């Protein structure tokens, strides 16, 4: 009993600096935003200042925008998270091997991640440009396409272009985390497995993958949260276009707040985003837990 009490005090001492900084800054705006979502703060509304209850939540969930926005957000989130996690894992496994040139690869892998998003968005917008983009120049030179394609002007391809640009920059994050995790592995177990003659795949599925589970969970949750909140890349590359093909929940939140001055609608969207992400996180954690029990 006594031990547990002192453990609680010890935990409080270790946690309180973080709590002070985080909640000290963020609690007030979070509560203010919550107030905005139930008290009309739409600057142009005739009902400004009135208590609206759950009106804005019902309005959001029944509006024509929310569900298509959510669909696009999920598409973007799922595809880019999967690409980054799998790609990151594959690359990390490669870079964890020893072969000539691996040091060079480990050195350059970080570069895309270091390029500011503002630049990354513009860079890929330029590369994919329909009129003078280098990708079109290469593809037509290789005779893969007869004419220049409008990658960002076609609703069918625009979102994939954004995903590609984003994955190029952010996959190194997963690589670095997987590499760090792989370093912590028990070499002795591996060597034993090798002596036993276990194949590469066998070793991967029976040893590497289970050990990487916590890292996978960290990365998947981290990327899901970031993807749901992604704003810069859409702002820079597509502005939600063409014909709303890349309009995500977050981009709509920005439009509601900074173009339409509907702070209440924006606040409501913000809470819905956070709730969805929280649910997804719980889902991931549970899937991982169930996997452990099996």
């Amino acid at each position, binding site marked *: 009993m006594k031990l547990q009490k002192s453990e*609680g*005090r010890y935990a*409080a*001492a270790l*946690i*309180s600096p973080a*709590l*002070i900084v985080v*909640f*000290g800054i963020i*609690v*007030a*705006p*979070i*509560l*203010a935003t919550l*107030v*905005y979502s139930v*008290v009309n*703060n739409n*600057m*142009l*509304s*005739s009902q*400004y*200042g009135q208590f609206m209850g759950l009106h804005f939540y019902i309005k959001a969930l029944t509006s024509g925008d929310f569900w298509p926005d959510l669909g696009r957000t999920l598409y973007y989130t799922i595809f880019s998270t999967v690409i980054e996690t799998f790609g990151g894992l594959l690359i990390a496994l490669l870079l964890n091997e020893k072969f000539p040139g691996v040091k060079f690869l480990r050195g350059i892998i970080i570069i895309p991640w270091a390029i500011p998003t503002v630049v990354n968005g513009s860079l890929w917008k330029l590369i994919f*440009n*329909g*009129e*003078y983009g280098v990708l079109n120049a290469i593809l037509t030179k290789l005779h893969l396409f007869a004419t*220049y394609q*409008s*990658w*960002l*002007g*076609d*609703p069918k391809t625009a979102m994939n272009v954004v995903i590609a640009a984003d994955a190029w920059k952010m996959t190194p994050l997963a690589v670095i985390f997987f590499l760090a995790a792989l370093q912590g592995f028990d070499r002795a177990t591996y060597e034993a497995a090798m002596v036993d003659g276990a194949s590469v795949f066998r070793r991967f599925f029976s040893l590497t993958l289970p050990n990487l589970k916590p890292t996978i969970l960290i990365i998947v949750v981290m990327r899901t949260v970031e993807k749901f909140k992604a704003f810069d890349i859409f702002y820079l590359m*597509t*502005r*939600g*276009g*063409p*014909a*709303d093909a890349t*309009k995500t929940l977050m981009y709509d939140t920005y*439009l509601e707040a*900074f*173009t*339409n*001055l*509907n702070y209440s609608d924006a606040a409501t969207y913000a809470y819905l985003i956070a709730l969805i992400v929280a649910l997804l996180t719980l889902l991931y954690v549970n899937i991982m837990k169930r996997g452990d029990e099996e």
Partner: protein
Amino acid sequence: MKKLAKTLSCGLLAALMVLSIAGCGSKASTTGSTSAAASASGEEVTLNALFMKQAGYSEDDVNAMTADFMAANPGIKVNVTFVAYEELEPKILTSAQSGGYDVVLGDCIWPAQFAKAGLVLDVTDRMADLDTSDIYEGALDSTKYEGRYYGIPWLNDVKYMFCNTAMLAQAGINTVPTTWDELVADAKILKDQGIVEYPIAACYAQAECLICDYTCISGAFGGSFVDADNNPTLNSPENVAALDFMYQTVADGLTNPKSLEMIEDDVLSTFTAGNAAFALNWTYMNASMNDEAASSVAGQAVIAPIPGTDKAVSATVNGGMPLMITAGSKHPDEAWAYMSFLASKDTQSKYCADALPIWKSLYSDPAVIAAGGEDVVNASNTQYQYIVNRPQVAYYNELSTEMQTELQNVLLGKTTAQAALDGLQAQAEELAKG
């Protein structure tokens, strides 16, 4: 755990205190004037002003104007901040009520919204200081909301047509088109003769520039987005015809299909690379187009008024930028003194090299003509008579985002002009109710 609970409750308390400031953002609506006394009593007043980088007057110009103002008004000190265009709106929205800036430069589509939201001050009474009859109506009107003025137009800009006359001459055409029918006929000839694959480059991306181009074309077809009382008229036959026309030029391959990803600068680049014969764009394109270092068509293209139809001689869109006083400003009198100094005829004629003035009388001034460029001033003299403002309604920005999406759907062939505009009309009527 006690400590944790204590920390949490402290945080909550602080939060609630701040909430009382944050939650009830007071909507200022009065033209408060509390500072005249301050400056009269000899105390120095400090103004903060927000300007834009990379367009219009240079930073050096604005700094020089400000220095002139401070020299003439020893009691007032002005701090100027320059931000990118994209930063202006979020900066104004977050700061206007607390008066972080006193004078702000804004886009001409914002005053109505800002006025309704109580972010900027009514300056109608102060406008009596100015000779408003000498200001171009189109520019002046953009600062008006429900009969009141909320700013002084300062940066003047409209769209023009740019035309590669060398390409036209190659096809044996010696006149610049003055109607859209002529333009389309010329474009067909250029395309058929293989002189240019896509004769028209347009900024039809999901952005405000799409609405700017549509404003010009709808105006030329005799349409408008709102009537005289600012009631929406989006699905008028003229607007439908204009949008059908835009769609048809894309479908016929006369307008570059990549226009759906283009904003102004992409249009400029396509044109200066010699891959378009016609384009609509703002004044800045004239200088870039004739800059040998950046353009392959320098000296081969001209600036001209935007074509019309039998319903209208021409129509262009106002792209000016007014100066406004924020609702939170503690010194509205000094703020007005400063911005009316910046917009004065003296200042505008002195610094006319980078931006054309708002004053009609200055356009006959030889110094202004020389500095602005004869071709631009000539085109402006015609073009300024046909300025159309995007609707000066508080809900315009929201309507615009809806329009951008729907117009793109039409241009992509996903829906018809009639259906899209009917839907937009219904949305606009809903928005108009508030």
